[in-house]
């Protein structure tokens, strides 16, 4: 494909970079990224992936936009309240960049549908806010050997890691199983600084872009911890666990699990 005059302008700051160039930009335009959630993390991540010219973005979110989302979920506007988040996200992203095809999914992901939905995407970006989805996405990515960017946030703190099944640890190597329902407070109970998911979601998008380009160092086997209150970044090493129930030497999880919902309120 040749770039149009508009594309040359739109992507010029990428093309100028020796690590991207026209070839890297074409790779991005041919890439497909699936975002789990169009919330605090998914919104900023998707916004930059669309701006970068990632050709196809699948976005799953079963919720409608609520006023309480607007403090951080930057794809949605006041006029979108009551409207499905996946559709609101699609409208904002396609307005930003017509080169991007956005495929919305308005059903919640579960063990029955996830494999089929994500199988044709190159990379998965998890911006979910609950443990059942997080474990479901991790396990599906391990079973399909899909690269996965994990991000999560709580109050003033966030964490990010990049999971490359077969090459490094997965989320279960870090935390083998979800905490019991009710033990971890949700965003609704705990609160979250609105700008925090912007930082974490954009770090996730950065990892995804480098993965797609095949350039740079990734957070493989590393958990990046960010504290917005003290303004500190820390990296901790995480190791592949040979006893991991899903990616270990003798995995016990060979089928996907639907864990019980922890909280009836979804974000």
């Amino acid at each position, binding site marked *: 494909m040749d770039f149009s005059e508009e594309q040359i302008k739109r992507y010029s700051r990428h093309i100028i970079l*020796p690590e991207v160039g026209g070839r890297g930009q074409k790779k991005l335009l041919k890439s497909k990224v699936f975002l789990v959630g169009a919330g605090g993390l998914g919104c900023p991540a998707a916004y930059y992936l669309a701006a970068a010219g990632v050709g196809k973005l699948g976005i799953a979110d079963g919720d409608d936009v609520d006023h309480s989302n607007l403090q951080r979920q930057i794809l949605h506007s006041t006029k979108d309240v009551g409207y499905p988040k996946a559709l609101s996200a699609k409208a904002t992203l396609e307005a930003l960049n017509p080169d991007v095809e956005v495929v919305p999914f308005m059903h919640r992901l579960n063990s029955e549908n996830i494999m089929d939905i994500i199988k044709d995407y190159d990379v998965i970006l998890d911006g979910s806010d609950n443990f059942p989805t997080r474990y479901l996405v991790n396990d599906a990515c391990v079973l399909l050997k899909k690269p996965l960017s994990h991000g999560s946030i709580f109050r003033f703190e966030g964490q990010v890691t990049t999971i490359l099944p077969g090459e490094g640890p997965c989320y279960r190597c870090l935390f083998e199983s979800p905490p019991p329902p009710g033990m971890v407070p949700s965003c609704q109970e705990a609160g979250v600084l609105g700008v925090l998911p912007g930082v974490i979601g954009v770090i996730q998008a950065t990892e995804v872009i480098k993965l797609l380009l095949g350039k740079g160092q990734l957070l493989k086997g590393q958990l990046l911890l960010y504290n917005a209150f003290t303004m500190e970044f820390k990296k901790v090493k995480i190791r592949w666990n040979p006893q991991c129930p899903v990616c270990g030497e003798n995995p016990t999880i060979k089928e996907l699990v639907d864990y019980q919902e922890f909280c009836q309120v979804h974000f």
Partner: protein
Amino acid sequence: MSSITKKASSPSASGGLSPNKTINLKGEVCPYTFVKTKLALEEMSVGEVLEVIVDHEPAVENVPRSIQNEGQKVLAVEKLNDTGGATTWRLVIKKEKD
């Protein structure tokens, strides 16, 4: 406005360098002069020579500098004696690195 033309090896006014390809970037300004030069080189093979015509004066310094940073070789930078219109320059670049 730019146009890209494939040239059969025609001997040029000086240097005797016969480009494999010529791009006319008259009317283009920085950074697009560099962006379009880089994109043209990406489509060429190592060893081939690209001729770039520009009329934006800063590009005469910027394009050779940036393209050298990418590992390509600048063979010639020449002012062309246009009759009438604005001054134009001719940059001759050899693709050294893919």
